[in-house]
């Protein structure tokens, strides 16, 4: 795992932990938050592609 991937994972974990604590849950929804980040990254790449093909 490179640094960029580690930072992304850390970001997802931070959000997931904060949400679990806010909900009083002992379970961390890591996969859900990683999927949210992937949705954002997908939209970012699509926007770049659309701009390049105009």
């Amino acid at each position, binding site marked *: 795992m490179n640094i960029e*991937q580690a930072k992304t994972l850390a970001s997802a974990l931070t959000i997931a932990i904060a949400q679990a604590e806010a909900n009083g849950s002992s379970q961390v929804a890591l996969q859900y938050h990683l999927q949210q980040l992937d949705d954002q990254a997908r939209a970012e*790449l699509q926007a770049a*592609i659309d701009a390049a093909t105009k």
Partner: protein
Amino acid sequence: MNAGLLLVSLALLVGCAAAPSAPLQAPKARVQLDAVATLSVGDCDTQTAADETAVIVARRNAAALVRGARMSADTALRIQALADTARTALNRACRGGKLDASAVAEARAARAQINTLMRSTP
């Protein structure tokens, strides 16, 4: 020792030798199964986390390269499609809490193709 006392003694010995009733064992077994199931779900998420973050970073890097005119839109479209394939496979990988090795292999094959495309970019 009289017969009555002997009978009572025998009855007590038989009672002590009886196997414990099922309800005493069942709750412990259920707690152990719940703990294992919870641990298994956590392990699967953890095992696929590295692959998921790699897909996210690949999309972000491709977006930066396209914006910097260092990657063609065609190549970026191929990366987007491969990342979608990896993502679909990873979504499948932890269903039921048990790691699906074939789904992970499919995701990694897509990632390998993404890496090849990224390396071909000047």
